[in-house]
Protein backbone atom coordinates (compact mmCIF):
# COMPACT_ATOMS: atom_id res chain seq x y z
CA UNK A 1 0.00 0.00 0.00
CA UNK A 2 1.21 3.48 -0.76
CA UNK A 3 2.32 5.30 2.33
CA UNK A 4 0.87 8.77 2.76
CA UNK A 5 2.35 11.62 4.76
CA UNK A 6 0.37 14.46 6.34
CA UNK A 7 1.12 17.94 5.04
CA UNK A 8 -0.10 21.07 6.75
CA UNK A 9 1.02 24.14 4.90
CA UNK A 10 0.00 27.78 4.76
CA UNK A 11 -0.34 28.90 1.15
CA UNK A 12 -1.15 32.54 0.38
CA UNK A 13 -2.32 32.99 3.96
CA UNK A 14 -4.64 29.98 4.05
CA UNK A 15 -3.84 26.72 5.84
CA UNK A 16 -4.29 23.53 3.78
CA UNK A 17 -4.13 19.98 5.15
CA UNK A 18 -3.61 17.02 2.85
CA UNK A 19 -2.11 13.55 2.81
CA UNK A 20 0.34 12.90 0.01
CA UNK A 21 3.01 10.51 -1.15
CA UNK A 22 6.56 11.49 -0.19
CA UNK A 23 7.48 11.74 -3.87
CA UNK A 24 4.95 14.46 -4.63
CA UNK A 25 6.82 17.60 -5.67
CA UNK A 26 5.76 20.87 -4.09
CA UNK A 27 5.01 22.20 -7.59
CA UNK A 28 2.60 19.33 -8.28
CA UNK A 29 1.08 19.69 -4.81
CA UNK A 30 0.26 23.35 -5.47
CA UNK A 31 -1.22 22.62 -8.87
CA UNK A 32 -2.97 19.28 -8.46
CA UNK A 33 -3.84 19.10 -4.76
CA UNK A 34 -4.62 22.78 -4.16
CA UNK A 35 -5.67 23.75 -7.69
CA UNK A 36 -3.33 26.74 -7.74
CA UNK A 37 -2.40 26.54 -11.40
CA UNK A 38 -0.47 29.82 -11.46
CA UNK A 39 2.74 28.02 -10.56
CA UNK A 40 4.04 26.65 -13.86
CA UNK A 41 6.17 23.56 -14.35
CA UNK A 42 8.81 23.78 -17.07
CA UNK A 43 11.97 21.72 -16.82
CA UNK A 44 11.64 19.98 -13.44
CA UNK A 45 15.35 20.19 -12.82
CA UNK A 46 15.86 23.70 -11.54
CA UNK A 47 17.04 25.36 -14.72
CA UNK A 48 14.03 27.27 -16.06
CA UNK A 49 12.68 28.98 -12.93
CA UNK A 50 9.01 28.80 -14.04
CA UNK A 51 7.99 27.03 -10.80
CA UNK A 52 9.55 29.62 -8.46
CA UNK A 53 7.48 30.30 -5.32
CA UNK A 54 8.24 31.96 -2.00
CA UNK A 55 9.13 29.52 0.76
CA UNK A 56 9.11 31.34 4.11
CA UNK A 57 9.50 34.56 2.13
CA UNK A 58 12.39 33.49 -0.08
CA UNK A 59 12.29 32.50 -3.75
CA UNK A 60 12.90 28.76 -4.27
CA UNK A 61 12.22 26.17 -6.96
CA UNK A 62 9.02 24.30 -6.09
CA UNK A 63 10.06 21.45 -8.44
CA UNK A 64 13.15 20.82 -6.30
CA UNK A 65 11.24 20.32 -3.07
CA UNK A 66 8.86 17.64 -1.91
CA UNK A 67 5.48 18.71 -0.56
CA UNK A 68 6.19 16.91 2.73
CA UNK A 69 9.18 19.18 3.20
CA UNK A 70 6.92 22.23 3.10
CA UNK A 71 4.79 21.04 6.01
CA UNK A 72 4.77 23.64 8.76
CA UNK A 73 6.07 26.31 6.42
CA UNK A 74 4.56 29.22 4.53
CA UNK A 75 4.31 29.39 0.75
CA UNK A 76 3.33 32.26 -1.50
CA UNK A 77 2.47 31.70 -5.13
CA UNK A 78 1.72 34.12 -7.96
CA UNK A 79 -1.95 33.99 -6.90
CA UNK A 80 -0.94 36.02 -3.82
CA UNK A 81 0.04 39.07 -5.90
CA UNK A 82 -2.71 41.06 -7.65
CA UNK A 83 -6.11 40.47 -9.19
CA UNK A 84 -7.03 41.28 -12.81
CA UNK A 85 -8.74 44.45 -11.56
CA UNK A 86 -5.97 45.39 -9.18
CA UNK A 87 -2.60 44.20 -10.43
CA UNK A 88 0.52 44.16 -8.26
CA UNK A 89 2.81 47.03 -9.37
CA UNK A 90 5.23 44.48 -10.80
CA UNK A 91 2.44 42.81 -12.78
CA UNK A 92 1.27 46.25 -13.96
CA UNK A 93 4.81 47.05 -15.12
CA UNK A 94 5.07 43.70 -16.97
CA UNK A 95 1.75 44.52 -18.65
CA UNK A 96 2.69 48.08 -19.64
CA UNK A 97 6.22 47.24 -20.81
CA UNK A 98 5.15 44.14 -22.77
CA UNK A 99 7.40 41.98 -20.61
CA UNK A 100 5.53 38.83 -21.55
CA UNK A 101 4.26 37.20 -24.69
CA UNK A 102 3.12 33.64 -24.03
CA UNK A 103 3.30 34.20 -20.27
CA UNK A 104 4.44 30.72 -19.33
CA UNK A 105 7.58 31.93 -17.54
CA UNK A 106 5.94 35.02 -16.02
CA UNK A 107 4.83 33.59 -12.63
CA UNK A 108 8.41 32.45 -12.01
CA UNK A 109 9.83 35.84 -12.95
CA UNK A 110 7.32 37.61 -10.71
CA UNK A 111 7.98 35.40 -7.69
CA UNK A 112 11.75 35.79 -8.20
CA UNK A 113 11.46 39.57 -8.47
CA UNK A 114 9.05 40.33 -5.61
CA UNK A 115 11.54 39.48 -2.82
CA UNK A 116 14.40 40.90 -4.91
CA UNK A 117 12.71 44.32 -5.10
CA UNK A 118 11.92 44.22 -1.40
CA UNK A 119 15.62 43.78 -0.60
CA UNK A 120 16.85 46.00 -3.40
CA UNK A 121 14.23 48.70 -4.15
CA UNK A 122 16.46 50.64 -6.57
CA UNK A 123 18.27 48.07 -8.69
CA UNK A 124 20.56 49.02 -11.55
CA UNK A 125 19.95 47.38 -14.90
CA UNK A 126 22.90 45.09 -14.21
CA UNK A 127 21.45 44.01 -10.85
CA UNK A 128 18.06 43.41 -12.45
CA UNK A 129 19.68 41.18 -15.05
CA UNK A 130 21.54 39.24 -12.37
CA UNK A 131 18.35 38.80 -10.36
CA UNK A 132 16.65 37.02 -13.25
CA UNK A 133 19.63 34.93 -14.38
CA UNK A 134 17.88 31.82 -13.09
CA UNK A 135 14.71 32.35 -15.08
CA UNK A 136 14.36 31.44 -18.74
CA UNK A 137 12.07 33.33 -21.12
CA UNK A 138 11.91 32.11 -24.70
CA UNK A 139 9.74 34.95 -26.04
CA UNK A 140 10.88 38.37 -24.99
CA UNK A 141 14.66 38.36 -25.22
CA UNK A 142 14.62 39.77 -21.66
CA UNK A 143 14.93 43.44 -22.68
CA UNK A 144 11.30 44.21 -21.85
CA UNK A 145 11.49 42.27 -18.62
CA UNK A 146 14.47 44.31 -17.45
CA UNK A 147 12.60 47.51 -18.39
CA UNK A 148 9.60 46.31 -16.39
CA UNK A 149 11.75 45.63 -13.32
CA UNK A 150 13.21 49.14 -13.39
CA UNK A 151 9.75 50.64 -14.02
CA UNK A 152 8.17 48.65 -11.19
CA UNK A 153 10.98 49.66 -8.84
CA UNK A 154 10.31 53.34 -9.66
CA UNK A 155 6.56 52.98 -9.17
CA UNK A 156 6.86 51.00 -5.96
CA UNK A 157 9.30 53.42 -4.36
CA UNK A 158 7.10 56.43 -5.30
CA UNK A 159 4.10 54.79 -3.72
CA UNK A 160 5.87 54.38 -0.39
Amino acid sequence: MTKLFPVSVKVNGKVYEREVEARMLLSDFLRHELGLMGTHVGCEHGICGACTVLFDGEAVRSCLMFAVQASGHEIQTVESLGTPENLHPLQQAFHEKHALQCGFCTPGFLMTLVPFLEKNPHPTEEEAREAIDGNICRCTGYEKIVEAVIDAADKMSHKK
Partner: protein
Amino acid sequence: MKPVKFDYYAPTSVPEALDTLNELGYDGKVIAGGQSLIAAMNFRMARPAALVDLNGVPELSYIKPNPDGSIAIGTMTRVNTVEYDQEVAKRFPLLPEVAKFIAHPAIRRRGTFGGAIAHADPAGQLPSIAVVMDANVLIRGKGKERWVKAPELIIGPFMTTIEPDEMLAEVVLTANPPYTGSNYMQVSRQNGGYAQAAVASIVNLDGEKVKNVRLVLMSVGEVPILSQKAVEILVGQKPTPEALKEVSEACASSEIDPATDIHATADYRRTLIRTLVGRSLTESIARAKKGG
Protein backbone atom coordinates in the same frame (compact mmCIF):
# COMPACT_ATOMS: atom_id res chain seq x y z
CA MET B 1 9.12 13.14 -15.15
CA LYS B 2 8.45 12.35 -11.51
CA PRO B 3 10.52 10.48 -8.92
CA VAL B 4 9.89 6.78 -8.36
CA LYS B 5 8.33 5.81 -5.04
CA PHE B 6 10.58 5.95 -2.02
CA ASP B 7 10.25 5.73 1.70
CA TYR B 8 10.74 8.94 3.63
CA TYR B 9 12.24 9.61 7.05
CA ALA B 10 12.43 13.03 8.66
CA PRO B 11 14.60 12.78 11.79
CA THR B 12 14.70 15.78 14.12
CA SER B 13 18.10 15.15 15.72
CA VAL B 14 21.53 13.88 14.67
CA PRO B 15 21.33 10.66 16.74
CA GLU B 16 17.94 9.88 15.21
CA ALA B 17 19.31 10.54 11.71
CA LEU B 18 22.31 8.26 12.35
CA ASP B 19 20.05 5.52 13.78
CA THR B 20 17.87 5.71 10.69
CA LEU B 21 20.84 5.58 8.31
CA ASN B 22 22.22 2.63 10.25
CA GLU B 23 18.94 0.72 9.98
CA LEU B 24 18.47 1.48 6.29
CA GLY B 25 22.03 0.62 5.21
CA TYR B 26 22.31 0.60 1.42
CA ASP B 27 18.63 1.57 1.03
CA GLY B 28 19.10 4.93 2.72
CA LYS B 29 20.17 8.15 1.05
CA VAL B 30 20.65 11.46 2.83
CA ILE B 31 18.82 14.41 1.36
CA ALA B 32 20.20 17.85 2.25
CA GLY B 33 19.12 20.81 0.09
CA GLY B 34 18.02 18.46 -2.67
CA GLN B 35 18.93 20.89 -5.44
CA SER B 36 20.91 18.21 -7.28
CA LEU B 37 19.33 15.07 -5.85
CA ILE B 38 15.68 15.95 -6.54
CA ALA B 39 16.57 16.99 -10.09
CA ALA B 40 18.27 13.60 -10.58
CA MET B 41 15.25 11.85 -9.01
CA ASN B 42 12.86 13.74 -11.29
CA PHE B 43 14.81 12.33 -14.22
CA ARG B 44 14.83 8.93 -12.52
CA MET B 45 18.62 8.87 -12.78
CA ALA B 46 18.61 8.57 -8.99
CA ARG B 47 16.21 6.03 -7.47
CA PRO B 48 16.93 5.85 -3.76
CA ALA B 49 14.75 3.35 -1.87
CA ALA B 50 14.52 5.70 1.11
CA LEU B 51 15.38 9.30 1.83
CA VAL B 52 16.63 10.52 5.19
CA ASP B 53 15.80 14.22 5.21
CA LEU B 54 18.13 16.41 7.29
CA ASN B 55 16.08 19.57 6.80
CA GLY B 56 14.37 19.04 10.15
CA VAL B 57 17.65 18.81 12.06
CA PRO B 58 18.42 22.43 13.06
CA GLU B 59 21.61 21.47 14.95
CA LEU B 60 23.32 20.77 11.59
CA SER B 61 23.03 24.36 10.45
CA TYR B 62 25.66 26.77 11.83
CA ILE B 63 28.76 28.81 11.08
CA LYS B 64 31.18 28.74 14.02
CA PRO B 65 34.26 30.98 13.85
CA ASN B 66 36.97 29.58 16.13
CA PRO B 67 39.60 31.64 18.01
CA ASP B 68 42.42 29.97 16.01
CA GLY B 69 41.07 31.55 12.82
CA SER B 70 39.35 28.43 11.53
CA ILE B 71 35.63 28.25 10.81
CA ALA B 72 33.37 25.23 11.28
CA ILE B 73 30.38 25.03 8.96
CA GLY B 74 27.49 22.67 9.74
CA THR B 75 26.54 20.48 6.82
CA MET B 76 23.01 21.89 6.42
CA THR B 77 24.12 25.54 6.27
CA ARG B 78 22.58 26.98 3.11
CA VAL B 79 25.02 28.12 0.43
CA ASN B 80 23.66 31.66 0.52
CA THR B 81 24.12 31.81 4.30
CA VAL B 82 27.82 31.08 3.74
CA GLU B 83 27.85 33.52 0.81
CA TYR B 84 26.68 36.47 2.94
CA ASP B 85 28.37 35.64 6.27
CA GLN B 86 30.64 38.52 7.37
CA GLU B 87 33.10 36.37 9.29
CA VAL B 88 33.42 33.90 6.41
CA ALA B 89 34.06 36.78 4.00
CA LYS B 90 36.74 38.21 6.29
CA ARG B 91 38.61 34.93 6.83
CA PHE B 92 37.91 33.15 3.53
CA PRO B 93 37.09 35.69 0.79
CA LEU B 94 37.30 32.82 -1.71
CA LEU B 95 33.91 31.53 -0.53
CA PRO B 96 31.74 34.58 -1.32
CA GLU B 97 33.74 34.99 -4.52
CA VAL B 98 32.91 31.48 -5.73
CA ALA B 99 29.35 31.43 -4.38
CA LYS B 100 28.20 33.95 -6.99
CA PHE B 101 28.95 31.34 -9.66
CA ILE B 102 26.97 28.51 -8.05
CA ALA B 103 23.74 28.09 -10.02
CA HIS B 104 21.20 30.82 -9.21
CA PRO B 105 20.10 32.67 -6.05
CA ALA B 106 16.97 30.49 -5.70
CA ILE B 107 19.14 27.35 -5.76
CA ARG B 108 21.70 28.78 -3.31
CA ARG B 109 18.94 29.57 -0.84
CA ARG B 110 18.00 25.91 -0.60
CA GLY B 111 21.23 24.10 -1.53
CA THR B 112 23.59 23.31 1.34
CA PHE B 113 27.33 23.64 1.85
CA GLY B 114 27.84 20.08 3.08
CA GLY B 115 25.40 18.55 0.61
CA ALA B 116 27.23 20.02 -2.36
CA ILE B 117 30.57 18.61 -1.14
CA ALA B 118 29.09 15.16 -0.40
CA HIS B 119 27.48 15.14 -3.86
CA ALA B 120 30.99 15.40 -5.38
CA ASP B 121 29.82 16.62 -8.77
CA PRO B 122 33.02 17.11 -10.81
CA ALA B 123 31.37 20.19 -12.34
CA GLY B 124 30.27 21.56 -8.95
CA GLN B 125 32.20 24.43 -7.44
CA LEU B 126 32.11 23.50 -3.75
CA PRO B 127 33.83 20.09 -4.01
CA SER B 128 36.70 21.82 -5.84
CA ILE B 129 36.79 24.62 -3.30
CA ALA B 130 36.88 22.11 -0.43
CA VAL B 131 39.85 20.44 -2.16
CA VAL B 132 41.76 23.66 -2.81
CA MET B 133 41.17 24.79 0.80
CA ASP B 134 42.19 21.34 2.08
CA ALA B 135 39.00 21.32 4.17
CA ASN B 136 38.69 18.95 7.12
CA VAL B 137 35.46 17.03 6.80
CA LEU B 138 33.71 15.33 9.72
CA ILE B 139 31.96 12.09 8.79
CA ARG B 140 29.58 10.64 11.36
CA GLY B 141 27.82 7.30 11.67
CA LYS B 142 26.05 5.56 14.51
CA GLY B 143 28.65 5.28 17.31
CA LYS B 144 31.51 6.41 15.08
CA GLU B 145 33.06 9.50 13.61
CA ARG B 146 36.15 10.30 11.58
CA TRP B 147 37.87 13.26 9.97
CA VAL B 148 38.86 13.19 6.31
CA LYS B 149 40.66 15.78 4.22
CA ALA B 150 38.59 16.85 1.22
CA PRO B 151 41.15 15.62 -1.37
CA GLU B 152 40.91 12.10 0.13
CA LEU B 153 37.13 12.30 0.52
CA ILE B 154 36.35 12.66 -3.18
CA ILE B 155 37.37 9.53 -5.08
CA GLY B 156 35.40 9.70 -8.32
CA PRO B 157 32.57 11.50 -10.11
CA PHE B 158 29.74 11.68 -7.56
CA MET B 159 31.76 9.28 -5.37
CA THR B 160 33.15 9.82 -1.89
CA THR B 161 34.43 7.61 0.91
CA ILE B 162 31.20 8.26 2.88
CA GLU B 163 29.60 4.89 3.71
CA PRO B 164 25.84 4.30 3.34
CA ASP B 165 25.36 4.44 7.13
CA GLU B 166 27.35 7.69 7.44
CA MET B 167 26.80 11.34 6.69
CA LEU B 168 28.93 14.41 6.19
CA ALA B 169 28.33 16.41 9.38
CA GLU B 170 30.70 19.36 9.40
CA VAL B 171 33.36 21.09 7.33
CA VAL B 172 36.25 22.88 9.04
CA LEU B 173 38.31 25.41 7.13
CA THR B 174 41.76 26.15 8.53
CA ALA B 175 42.94 29.76 8.78
CA ASN B 176 45.20 31.09 6.08
CA PRO B 177 48.52 32.59 7.20
CA PRO B 178 49.12 36.31 6.46
CA TYR B 179 50.09 37.17 2.89
CA THR B 180 47.74 34.59 1.44
CA GLY B 181 45.69 35.43 -1.63
CA SER B 182 42.99 33.37 -3.28
CA ASN B 183 40.92 33.48 -6.43
CA TYR B 184 38.31 31.58 -8.45
CA MET B 185 37.78 31.92 -12.19
CA GLN B 186 35.53 30.05 -14.58
CA VAL B 187 34.36 30.17 -18.16
CA SER B 188 30.70 29.36 -18.70
CA ARG B 189 28.17 30.28 -21.35
CA GLN B 190 25.86 32.14 -19.01
CA ASN B 191 25.57 33.29 -15.40
CA GLY B 192 24.92 30.28 -13.22
CA GLY B 193 25.62 27.79 -15.98
CA TYR B 194 28.03 24.90 -15.63
CA ALA B 195 31.63 25.87 -16.24
CA GLN B 196 33.37 24.47 -19.30
CA ALA B 197 36.50 24.79 -17.15
CA ALA B 198 37.40 26.54 -13.91
CA VAL B 199 40.38 27.15 -11.66
CA ALA B 200 40.75 28.03 -7.99
CA SER B 201 44.05 29.03 -6.46
CA ILE B 202 45.45 29.92 -3.05
CA VAL B 203 48.96 31.38 -2.82
CA ASN B 204 50.93 32.15 0.34
CA LEU B 205 53.95 34.41 -0.10
CA ASP B 206 57.11 34.71 1.98
CA GLY B 207 58.51 38.05 0.85
CA GLU B 208 58.92 37.79 -2.91
CA LYS B 209 58.84 34.01 -2.99
CA VAL B 210 56.01 31.50 -2.97
CA LYS B 211 55.86 29.63 0.32
CA ASN B 212 52.84 27.56 -0.53
CA VAL B 213 50.47 27.18 -3.45
CA ARG B 214 47.29 25.19 -3.93
CA LEU B 215 45.76 25.13 -7.38
CA VAL B 216 42.70 23.11 -8.33
CA LEU B 217 41.51 22.42 -11.88
CA MET B 218 37.76 21.86 -12.23
CA SER B 219 35.51 20.31 -14.88
CA VAL B 220 38.51 18.82 -16.68
CA GLY B 221 38.60 15.38 -15.06
CA GLU B 222 36.56 12.96 -13.01
CA VAL B 223 37.39 14.73 -9.75
CA PRO B 224 38.75 18.16 -8.80
CA ILE B 225 42.43 17.98 -9.76
CA LEU B 226 44.93 19.36 -7.28
CA SER B 227 47.94 20.47 -9.29
CA GLN B 228 51.28 18.95 -8.26
CA LYS B 229 53.13 20.84 -10.96
CA ALA B 230 52.21 24.19 -9.44
CA VAL B 231 53.83 23.09 -6.17
CA GLU B 232 56.94 21.69 -7.91
CA ILE B 233 57.50 24.74 -10.08
CA LEU B 234 56.56 27.57 -7.72
CA VAL B 235 57.32 26.69 -4.09
CA GLY B 236 60.48 28.46 -2.91
CA GLN B 237 60.63 30.46 -6.14
CA LYS B 238 59.73 33.94 -7.27
CA PRO B 239 56.47 33.75 -9.23
CA THR B 240 57.82 35.34 -12.39
CA PRO B 241 55.66 35.50 -15.53
CA GLU B 242 57.89 32.77 -17.00
CA ALA B 243 57.32 30.49 -14.00
CA LEU B 244 53.55 31.04 -14.18
CA LYS B 245 53.61 30.25 -17.89
CA GLU B 246 55.47 27.05 -17.13
CA VAL B 247 52.76 26.08 -14.61
CA SER B 248 49.98 26.86 -17.11
CA GLU B 249 51.62 24.72 -19.77
CA ALA B 250 52.27 21.85 -17.37
CA CYS B 251 48.67 21.88 -16.10
CA ALA B 252 47.18 21.99 -19.58
CA SER B 253 49.44 19.34 -21.07
CA SER B 254 49.94 16.77 -18.34
CA GLU B 255 47.61 17.18 -15.38
CA ILE B 256 44.12 17.15 -16.84
CA ASP B 257 41.98 14.70 -18.74
CA PRO B 258 39.22 16.81 -20.24
CA ALA B 259 36.29 15.29 -22.11
CA THR B 260 34.61 16.39 -25.30
CA ASP B 261 30.86 16.88 -24.97
CA ILE B 262 28.17 19.16 -26.37
CA HIS B 263 29.40 22.03 -24.22
CA ALA B 264 33.07 22.10 -25.26
CA THR B 265 35.79 20.05 -26.91
CA ALA B 266 38.68 18.62 -24.92
CA ASP B 267 41.05 20.93 -26.81
CA TYR B 268 39.00 23.97 -25.93
CA ARG B 269 38.98 22.96 -22.26
CA ARG B 270 42.78 22.58 -22.38
CA THR B 271 43.07 26.07 -23.82
CA LEU B 272 40.81 27.42 -21.08
CA ILE B 273 42.90 25.79 -18.36
CA ARG B 274 46.11 27.17 -19.88
CA THR B 275 44.65 30.69 -19.76
CA LEU B 276 42.77 30.47 -16.46
CA VAL B 277 45.72 29.03 -14.49
CA GLY B 278 47.92 31.99 -15.37
CA ARG B 279 45.21 34.53 -14.68
CA SER B 280 44.06 33.00 -11.42
CA LEU B 281 47.59 32.61 -10.01
CA THR B 282 48.44 36.19 -11.03
CA GLU B 283 45.35 37.46 -9.22
CA SER B 284 46.00 35.36 -6.10
CA ILE B 285 49.59 36.59 -5.96
CA ALA B 286 48.47 40.22 -6.30
CA ARG B 287 46.01 39.70 -3.44
CA ALA B 288 48.64 37.93 -1.32
CA LYS B 289 51.00 40.88 -1.74
CA LYS B 290 48.32 43.13 -0.24
CA GLY B 291 48.36 40.95 2.86
CA GLY B 292 45.53 38.65 1.77
